[in-house]
């Protein structure tokens, strides 16, 4: 089955939780993980697998959280651990800030955790990726 980023976004909106993984860029060097809904302990195991797969496949990880309605600490510590892993491996990790993400980080006292370092808000929307880079998603 083939999904477009738009299709993922639709799924993310319709689903309470969604974690979608795709490859993009030249030779699939970029792994995109689009999250939606409430990302918490209930989806932490899936998120971990997605992050591990992403790191194993590409040179760059992009995590989109535009459709996320809630984060809990298990989700944020996973993202933080993934970021540290990619840094150690010389990969690029991008986690564009969103309101929900920044708010969750602030509430949990994690704003100083450097999770968002190097990521800019202009990458926050998955649609932009789809539009600019035209991914093929399987």
């Amino acid at each position, binding site marked *: 089955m083939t999904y477009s980023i738009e299709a993922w976004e639709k*799924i993310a909106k319709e689903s309470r939780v969604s974690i*979608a993984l795709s490859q993009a860029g030249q030779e699939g060097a970029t792994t995109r993980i689009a999250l939606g809904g409430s990302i918490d302990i209930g989806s932490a195991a899936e998120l971990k697998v997605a992050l591990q797969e992403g790191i194993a496949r590409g040179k760059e990880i992009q995590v989109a959280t535009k459709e996320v309605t809630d984060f809990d*600490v298990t989700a944020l*510590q996973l993202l*933080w651990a993934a970021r540290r892993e990619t840094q150690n491996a010389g990969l690029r990790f991008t986690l564009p800030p969103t309101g929900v993400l920044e708010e969750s980080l602030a509430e949990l*006292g994690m704003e100083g955790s450097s999770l968002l370092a190097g990521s800019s808000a202009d990458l926050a929307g998955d649609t932009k990726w789809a539009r600019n880079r035209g991914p093929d998603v399987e």
Partner: protein
Amino acid sequence: MNGRVMQEPGYGNAELFKQSFREEAKEILTELETTLLELNESHGDTELVGRIFRALHTIKGSGAMFGFERLAAFTHNLETAFDLVRSGRLEPTSELIDLTLSALDQIAAMLEEDAAGATRVDFAACNRILASVQQLAGIQASGETVGTKSEQVPVEAAGSSELNAETRKWRVHFAPGPDLMRFGANPLLLLRELRQLGDCAARAVMDAVPPLGDLDPERCYVQWEIELTTSAGQEAIRDVFIFVEDTCELRIEPASGGSSKAAEAGPPCEADLAARALEEKRGPSPGRRSSDKPDHASSLRVPAAKLDQFVDLVGELVTMQARLSELAVRRDDPEVTAVSEEIERLTAALRESSMNIRMMPIKGTFEKFRRLVHDLARDLQKNVELTIEGADTELDKTVIEQLGDPLMHLIRNSMDHGIEPPEVRAAQGKPSVANIRLSARHAGASVLVSVSDDGRGIDSAAVRRRAVERGLLPVDAELSESQIFALIFQPGFSTAKQVTDVSGRGVGMDVVRQRVENLRGTVEIASKAGQGTSVTLRLPLTMAIIDGLLVAVDNACFVLPLATTLECIELTRDDIAQANGKHIANVRGQIVPYIRLREHFGFQSSPPPLIEQIMLVETTEGRFGFVVDQVLGNCQTVIKSLGRSYRHVETVSGATILGNGTVALILDPERMIKNPVRASKRLPAQSEQKTPRLRGKNGCRK
């Protein structure tokens, strides 16, 4: 290219966590009720007020955490009111206490609301309570009503009444344990609640987060260092973590420097110093693990169903062990016998332990009646004090669970019919405050639970008159006072509207007797006109096992409860002849009636032995005998229910499986003699007594 979508309904075990909260909250509600009633007696007790406030705060905060938004919103107003009481700005009047008690009933109903929306909550009552509390406390109504799920939990600071009090800076170290998240707790909500206490700066420490591959996704590795400037005390801060204390490291201590009046903060409290000393002694492990506290470590919450299953399995093991013992005897092999004896010893120890696990103090049941007495005293306009004695007495879980209704009936009867109105008591020179005493104590293999009052007592003449009017008693019947009192357990007395005319003690008394007999217990009444009445329930310690005497009749075996068995005497053919065919025996000059089990159960396959045995038992109707062929010996047996098909067989309280695999019925002597006694007194039978007909090998069938 890969695409994968995962859907997850959120916390998989959410209902489990909610259930855990429900159980804890119910315990808090019970304590809260008791504390409120204590406060009603001593209005100025600040410690009680503090306890009530903290309990309400805990229910509110934890309720919100576990998704009980309606409960949290409703409790908030009560919490605010008691915050005002705490700060001396509101009087803890009886009105406020009554309102809070009513609110507790609604909170209990809110706890039981399920996901499908089924509810026993009386929303109209909730709104009335809310409005009254707001009016009493001068809280500005926010316009919210209870009944929709849209309430937001107010984010007002707990301990807000202390905002003008001295503020202090605290340092809080919070490190979730491995299972904190799995238990449904969420640090985010804890931090939010902490922020409600004052100025809060939280810093997440990520040092303990392992590499991604090693990371358990359902565990929180993040720790927090928090600086909190608040007027709330250490207890209020600790209360935020009350539901997670056992699954985290928590250290709360005054900051040594910083803003506010930290310099005046003073030394750490004694408890913290002690905790720190203990930590130092233990080694470098940081923080205080609440699970180290002996009071937490010494108890474990286990679902009742699991416990029942465990006891059932032990019962099966006991049965199999009995079979093994018999097999060992038959084989006459020393090695098998040695193993069998060892297993018998271990099984006995296991059975003893499992029965002890089922034992619970009766305190919880007793304490619930404080509220009943309080409410009835208010409604009946009587001054009544409830005294509780022996609350730590332990009883089998099943017995305790089924004791609530009988005790409630007895207390209601005492309140309604036994206790006189204040003016009557004053005219009789009695204290204006009446007393109802609820007590429990051990007596051998039984527990005696009594409800006593210092009311008007039972008018035995009036009871007798009423019994005759209702055709329950012939006019010329000769009855002792205790037998007359026993008449009030007749169903006719319980439903008659005029029961109160016979100085009371009728309503529900048949229910009391029924329930107590179902528990293999008995009821005794003692009363003196003008001085009071005492109803004593004699209950077995446990429902799961019974100490009995194994007897044989024809080819069948029966168990008679040892607790009521007095002695065994011989019955010869000459004795039977001397009695002229009547079923009576002369026991050291005392005439004792007996029932021949051969005749009772219709055994005819073999002739009776030349010398039979009379088992003498003590009953509420006096001494009776049960004639059997042979006494086989003592036995401690696991009671098995006979099942629905035999539910109308009242003379048998259960069955047990013997070592040879056959079934022995456990007889209920009290009920076996009921019909003969009624016949002799010409009393109408309470219900048709059905006697099981036994057949098959050994005369037994399951």
